[in-house]
């Protein structure tokens, strides 16, 4: 209870006491006035009756003597009688008149038209003398009585009665007040005090009134009230206990919820039906970089990349038909972070019905690692598939190309037999050459296959090799060919140092330079330049080198074919055609790639190959 209420309680009590006394006084005063009025009126009647009877008495007592005295005109006697009458109480003035003329009078004649005239009563009667059976009128007697005394009496009596009544009423009022206070007032006050001191923490003390035994046999209204208040107290106590238990269980469930909410490995968002964020857990804050303040009360579109313009519409659509489901279908969903970066996420939506309407719980799982793993898996699968395809091509090619010399050998043995039988001796030598060439080809193919299969077996460690040194070594190995063809070879200075399998990398340059010399245009001396095309300038981690020649060139439709196993564009030249296959394989094993460009036939060709920049 607040102080204000306590104060008003006191005021209320005082008002009741005041009202109580006031009503008692007013009512007793009214009763007194009523009683006094009644009594006074009764007294006034009595007094008037007294005066009337006095008039009668005077008439009956004095009539005969006055008539007789008038008859004999004994004025002395008449005056005595009249004086005697005026001696009577209230009688002020007596006259005997003959016609309009007053012949005898006694007492003070009342002034005519004065204010007291209202307080006068006049009784007149005629005086007749029966003489010789004739009625002779002797005159008229007028007796005037004053009511002043009557009024004085009335006032005296009235006042006395009024005071008497008033005193009596005061005493009764006081007594009633005391009794009332004793019986009710103090108990009410105590109840008020009790009610005022009552609070939810202290509901154990029962209300007890002085002089009231709770078990008393005759229960009066107060004890009913006390019992009712005590019952109310107990009800209050038990409902308070229930409330406390409820609050406690609420608090514990809130703690549990908070614990799960905040510790969830997934980002959790609660969004109301208007699309405003109501809660966002720490995981989500960490994921997005937004603080709680920047999220709560803001539209959930804060967390959606701006290009998903249809999100709001979709959300409203979902809001109309809420169901537990995965969001986005097959679409890759991303969370918009504060720094405008995006995190790939999987989002599951659950509608939760509350008293404030349906809210939506969104669980966001960061799937960037999973996606990365998936992408790596995909990459691995792809590389595996391409390896598999390569292997298939390889076995196919190998079986085809290995079968070919067998057909030759077997065929020419048959032809040789026929030639011998037919006596075509001049053919014998060429037949035998065909056979031995086929055998040599077979040998070469097998050697090449073996060489190719060796590449990529991680038996040889990669070392730091300055490219210029490596190329110079290769050029030394090629001294014979270079000298015999008069080839000019220029190498860019300050080529980078790379980390490679040195021996294999020599083969790359050996093959490319040899090819450049081999496929030269007739009458044109081979010119070969080696240099750097792109030194990881675009940041893809690769260095691209080139080997350019001025040879016969390659048509663009053959670009892919020259790297195939045993493929040659020109059968007029030596070799099994495996050289560029080996180069390609070495480059790929080193993590790079190789391609060729040519301005067309007789315009030379440029081989580009990339290797990882390990610096």
């Amino acid at each position, binding site marked *: 209870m607040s102080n204000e209420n306590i104060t008003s309680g006191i005021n209320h009590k005082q008002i009741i006491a005041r009202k109580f006394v006031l009503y008692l006084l007013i009512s007793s005063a009214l009763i007194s006035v009523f009683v006094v009025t009644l009594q006074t009126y009764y007294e006034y009647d009595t007094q008037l009756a007294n005066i009337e009877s006095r008039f009668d008495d005077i008439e009956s007592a004095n009539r005969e003597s006055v008539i007789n005295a008038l008859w004999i005109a004994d004025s002395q006697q008449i005056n005595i009688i009249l004086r005697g009458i005026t001696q009577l109480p209230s009688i002020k003035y007596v006259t005997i008149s003959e016609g309009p003329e007053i012949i005898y009078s006694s007492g003070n004649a009342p002034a005519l038209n004065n204010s007291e005239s209202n307080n006068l009563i006049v009784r007149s009667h005629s005086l007749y003398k029966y003489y010789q059976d004739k009625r002779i009128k002797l005159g008229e007697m007028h007796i005037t009585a004053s009511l002043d005394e009557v009024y004085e009496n009335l006032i005296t009596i009235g006042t006395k009665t009024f005071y008497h009544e008033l005193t009596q009423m005061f005493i009764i009022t006081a007594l009633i007040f005391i009794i009332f206070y004793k019986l009710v007032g103090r108990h009410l006050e105590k109840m008020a005090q009790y009610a005022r001191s009552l609070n939810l923490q202290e509901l154990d003390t029962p209300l007890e009134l002085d002089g009231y035994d709770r078990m008393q046999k005759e229960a009066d209204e107060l004890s009913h009230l006390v019992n009712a208040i005590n019952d109310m107290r107990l009800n209050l106590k038990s409902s308070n206990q229930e409330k406390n238990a409820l609050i406690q269980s609420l608090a514990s469930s809130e703690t549990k919820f908070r614990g799960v909410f905040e510790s969830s490995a997934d980002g959790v968002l609660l969004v109301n039906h208007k699309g405003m964020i109501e809660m966002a857990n720490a995981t989500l804050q960490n994921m997005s970089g937004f603080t709680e303040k920047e999220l709560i009360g803001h539209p959930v579109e804060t967390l959606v990349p701006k290009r998903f313009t249809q999100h709001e519409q979709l959300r409203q659509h979902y809001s109309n038909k809420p169901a537990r489901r995965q969001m986005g279908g097959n679409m890759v969903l991303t969370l918009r972070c504060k720094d405008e970066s995006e995190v790939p996420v999987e989002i599951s939506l659950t509608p939760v019905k509350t008293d404030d309407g349906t809210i939506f719980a969104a669980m966001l799982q960061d799937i960037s690692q999973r996606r990365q793993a998936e992408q790596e898996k995909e990459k691995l699968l792809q590389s595996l598939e391409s390896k598999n395809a390569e292997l298939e091509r390889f076995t196919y090619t190998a079986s085809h190309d290995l079968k070919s010399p067998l057909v030759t050998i*077997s065929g020419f043995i048959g032809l040789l037999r026929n030639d011998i039988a037919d006596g075509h001796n001049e053919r014998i030598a060429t037949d035998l050459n065909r056979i031995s060439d086929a055998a040599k080809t077979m040998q070469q193919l097998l050697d090449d296959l073996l060489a190719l299969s060796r590449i990529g077996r991680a038996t040889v460690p990669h070392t730091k090799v300055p490219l210029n040194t490596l190329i110079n070594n290769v050029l030394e190995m090629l001294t014979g060919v270079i000298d015999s063809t008069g080839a000019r070879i220029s190498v860019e200075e300050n080529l980078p140092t790379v980390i490679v399998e040195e021996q294999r990398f020599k083969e790359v340059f050996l093959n490319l330079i040899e090819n450049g010399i081999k496929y030269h245009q007739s009458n044109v001396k081979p010119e070969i330049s080696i240099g750097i095309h792109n030194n990881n300038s675009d940041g893809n981690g690769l260095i691209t080198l080139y080997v350019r020649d001025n040879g016969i060139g390659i048509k663009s439709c053959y670009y892919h074919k020259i790297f195939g196993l045993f493929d040659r*564009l020109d059968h007029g030249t030596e070799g099994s055609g495996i050289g560029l296959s080996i180069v390609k394989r070495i480059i790929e094993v080193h993590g790079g790639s190789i391609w060729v460009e040519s301005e067309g036939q007789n315009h030379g060709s440029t081989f580009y190959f990339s290797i990882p920049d390990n610096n």
Partner: protein
Amino acid sequence: MNAQIKHGEALRILLVEDNSAHAEMVARSFENNRIANVIEHVSDGEQALNYLYRREQYSNVKTKPHVVLLDLRLPKIDGLEVLRDIKTSSELKSIPVVILTTSSADVDVAQAYDYHANSYLVKPIDFDNFTKMMDELGYYWLAWNHKPF
């Protein structure tokens, strides 16, 4: 042999073969053949198409071959590419194309027929079979078979 042999017209064969030893074997087999024949040999796919379309050094070729013997693995333009080119050309598609290769791989056979090869032959390693195949091949296409032109 009941087949009618049209005298005075030899079977014109275009042999597309990159392996010179194989080409010689085919040529020598046809030397002993029962039927008259003329073999034109080219050693890669590009030359084959140039011959058929009478381009470059073959611009003065007068007639189309009656049959093309086509190896599959060829330098420059692959045999299957040559086949596809022939069979999609309104000018050349009526020429019977017989694939003659060492490959018996399913994928090659399927691809060749997909490109409308008229026949698919695998070079036998056995010499007798080889000569027999060449003999019957010539006889079939010249004697039994009605040529498109």
